[in-house]
């Protein structure tokens, strides 16, 4: 503290310590948030085709096509410790090949300040719904779920499943005509 430089060092170090403490308090203030909200999912149309998967084995695999409605009000999830949400929709089902299949059909990053009230009607998924065999045709129980990662300023990265998933079934026959 006897020279200008040592004082500068002391002030800077103390400021950084206080900033670290404040960041920790910010984390504690949101550590017990649930980050849950209701999601309304509904499929409008679902067909399945049997086509070669050139991106993988070139064998004929089941490819699902669907259009869906998605409504969710995610505005309540944002607070001063949330920078952005990574939201993604998964389809989960059981097939003969696997006990558990999870396919990400759509995702989106919502930054804080962006429009967080989602209302999609009759939209197509962003990614292909490939099965690794013939597990989609006639599948009676395919569950769509919307989930999100919360990206905070400080703290843990919770992965939250939205409440309100939707189950649908694919038709028992392949569609051969062009769809959608």
């Amino acid at each position: 503290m006897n020279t200008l430089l040592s004082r500068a060092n002391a002030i800077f170090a103390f400021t950084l310590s206080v900033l670290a403490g404040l960041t920790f308090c910010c984390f504690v203030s949101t550590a017990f948030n649930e980050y849950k909200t209701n999601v309304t999912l509904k499929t409008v149309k679902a067909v399945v085709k049997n086509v070669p998967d050139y991106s993988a084995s070139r064998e004929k695999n089941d490819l699902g096509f669907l259009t869906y409605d998605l409504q969710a009000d995610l505005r309540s999830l944002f607070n001063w410790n949330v920078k952005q949400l990574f939201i993604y929709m998964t389809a989960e089902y059981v097939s003969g090949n696997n006990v558990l299949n999870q396919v990400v059909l759509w995702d989106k990053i919502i930054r804080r300040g962006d429009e967080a009230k989602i209302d999609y009607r009759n939209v197509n998924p962003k990614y292909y719904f490939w099965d690794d065999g013939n597990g989609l045709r006639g599948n009676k129980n395919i569950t769509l779920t919307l989930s999100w990662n919360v990206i905070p300023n400080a703290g843990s990265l919770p992965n939250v499943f939205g409440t309100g998933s939707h189950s649908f079934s694919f038709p028992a026959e392949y569609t051969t005509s062009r769809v959608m």
Partner: protein
Amino acid sequence: MLDNLNFKSIPTHMDFDGQRRAEKIFQTIILVFGIVGFIGGYIYQQFSYTVYILGAGFVLSCLLTLPPWPMYRREPLPWQKPQIENVESTQKSKKKTK
């Protein structure tokens, strides 16, 4: 004109009590700004406000305690009177001759 100024005569030190007070002052300022920033950031739900207000406290405490202001020089140490010895007296006489 500048040659007439004796820069060595400008005091640039803090006395011990001044150093203690300087440390207390910047700690108080930064803590108060941090707490106010935290409350403000919580009310507005913007952590960046907290950081900016803390930064303002940093700048203010730098201005107040970095330069050796005269207020930190109010309690000089009560040095003993210089004891006159032969060696010193010769040095003094040397300086005078300069």
